[in-house]
């Protein structure tokens, strides 16, 4: 019977009826009103966040006459998928009129090798830094982390020269190398911290059993660290897919990634603006990272938290 909550409620009730001046800590009698406020605010904010996605979707499903007639928030009276088809296979950038599909496949051809290469290199780096520390390793690591904060603009041109020297400027391979380089600081940090948390005994036991650098990496560390690999993949796929600056600097119109091509389609000054096609193109470009985001859920959050929290 002596439930403190109940007691508080009873006291509160007598408060309301009896004395005008309450004393002590405020009891939680306004729980329901507080909840209405709380959820009310959260729902309003959530609607605000969802609004652009909704606008994008409904605009892409309308015909142009309907867009000229009504507001951007109105749901489509007549759903048409024509803008999607047009955005994918007919929209023009400059002289090319084969739609976003070209950019999409370029982005696929950029993203897959970049993600694989950057994660392979960074995981080995992280492993070497965490378990096989050699003299000077931390200095290189410090420089690497410093590189994460330097504005990319500072390194844009030297990399143009490097790529030109090895004959990869303007190619997809060149862009893959650039993504591998700029993904390295954060990924190395991620893997270093993860491998550092693996119990030392395990590592020592493997050493006693005669396993070497690569043996321990492939037989012990790799199988144990699947979650961190998934986090790294999420981080890299979204990051590389969404990149614009490197795409614009290091590729040519034929090899432009999707974001660059999207921007060229939507912001081209020639021709009649087809807002529905533009929004369809925009949503198609956003679809890959959004899908990854909604599927991965908590792991995505872990990825950005890992990216944000210091080592």
């Amino acid at each position, binding site marked *: 019977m002596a439930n403190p909550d109940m007691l508080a409620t009873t006291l509160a009730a007598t408060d309301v009826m009896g004395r005008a001046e309450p004393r*002590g*800590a*405020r009891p939680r009698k306004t729980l329901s009103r507080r909840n209405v406020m*709380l*959820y009310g605010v*959260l729902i309003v*904010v959530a609607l605000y*966040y*969802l609004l*652009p*996605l909704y*606008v*994008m979707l409904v605009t892409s499903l309308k015909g142009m006459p309907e867009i000229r007639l009504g*507001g*951007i*928030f109105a749901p489509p009276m007549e759903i048409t998928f024509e803008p999607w088809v047009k955005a994918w296979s007919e929209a023009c950038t400059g002289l090319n009129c084969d739609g976003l599909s070209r950019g999409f496949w370029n982005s696929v051809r950029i993203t897959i090798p970049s993600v694989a290469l950057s994660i392979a290199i960074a995981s*080995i*780096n992280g*492993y*070497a830094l965490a378990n*096989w520390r*050699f003299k000077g*390793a931390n200095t*290189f690591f410090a*420089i690497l982390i*410093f*590189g994460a*904060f*330097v*504005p990319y*603009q*500072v*390194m*844009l*041109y030297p990399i143009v*020269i490097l790529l030109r020297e090895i004959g990869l400027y303007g190619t997809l391979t060149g862009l893959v190398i650039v993504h591998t380089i700029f993904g390295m600081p954060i990924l190395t940090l991620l893997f270093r911290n993860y491998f550092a948390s693996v119990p030392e005994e395990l590592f020592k036991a493997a050493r006693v059993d005669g396993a*070497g*650098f690569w043996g321990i990496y492939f037989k012990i560390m790799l199988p144990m660290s699947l979650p961190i690999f998934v986090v790294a993949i999420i981080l890299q796929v979204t990051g590389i897919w*969404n990149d*614009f*600056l490197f795409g614009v*600097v290091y590729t040519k119109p034929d090899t432009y990634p999707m*974001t660059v091509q*999207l*921007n060229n389609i*939507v912001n081209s000054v020639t021709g009649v603006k087809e*807002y529905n096609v*533009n*929004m369809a193109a925009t949503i198609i*470009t956003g679809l890959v*990272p*959004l899908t990854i985001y909604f599927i991965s*859920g*908590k792991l*995505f959050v872990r990825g*950005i*938290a890992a990216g*944000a929290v*210091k*080592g």
Partner: protein
Amino acid sequence: MSADGPPGRLFKNISAKIASIPMILTAVVVFLGGTLWTVIYSFTDSKLLPRLNFVGLAQYERLWSTPRWIVSIENLAIYGILSLIFSFVIGFLLAALLDQQIRFENTFRTIFLYPFALSFIVTGLVWQWILNPDFGLQHIIRGLGWENFTFNPLYDARLVMFGIVLAGLWQGTGLIMCLMLAGLRGIDEDIWKAARVEGIPTWKTYLFIVIPMMRPVFVTTLVIVMAGIVKLYDLVVAMTAGGPGTASEVPAKYVYEFMFRAQNLGQGFAASTMMLLSVAVVVIPWAYLEFGGKRRG
């Protein structure tokens, strides 16, 4: 058979060193070398091609007397200050709301964070469409009866940066909320109990106890956000392409234009070195405070 005896230190180090070659090359050649290269060439009169003909601070003098650069800096300051204030306030408030042991916390968090998964180009294009004067927000509100309602930031030189801030906030606040939420979850439950026993109102507990305790989280978030602000580029390109006129130019765009369009490398190098300087002013004191005192084993 190296596996038999205990391998010497040298041997063990060699494996790790060979494996670290890509990292060492990236760190030394690209990051350190590239940065130094750009800084050195910012003192030359390089035009179409880089060449080592030193002209002292001439590029910097020209930079700071170019109205377009001044506008860029002002715009970055407006964007930076506004987005810092609003994203921290909104991000913290949302985190505090989500920390009230509410139901559907995951759903709300998913919704607040999803814009962060999108590219700045996508974000910029959606908001360009929402802020379109003929079809978007202005059109809708005029249709509701306010005939003279005007909200057309993207075509108004005085307001254009506010339009960009609006889109930037939509995309970035979720990240801050997430980091703040992690910080709030790190606060010991006993602190809350003690505050409750003392009869301190919730808002006061947040303001005077919890927020001061979250200082490290705030500082780290601040550094990350500021490093991101300096890089502001894609969003502007997608939303306004720097327009109307040069009203929404930003430093990163200035660098790109001079390096790859105007064939004036020296200006581009000087401008990017200024960007580096501005980041260094923020990051070096932070890194010193954060990592300088305590050595990690």
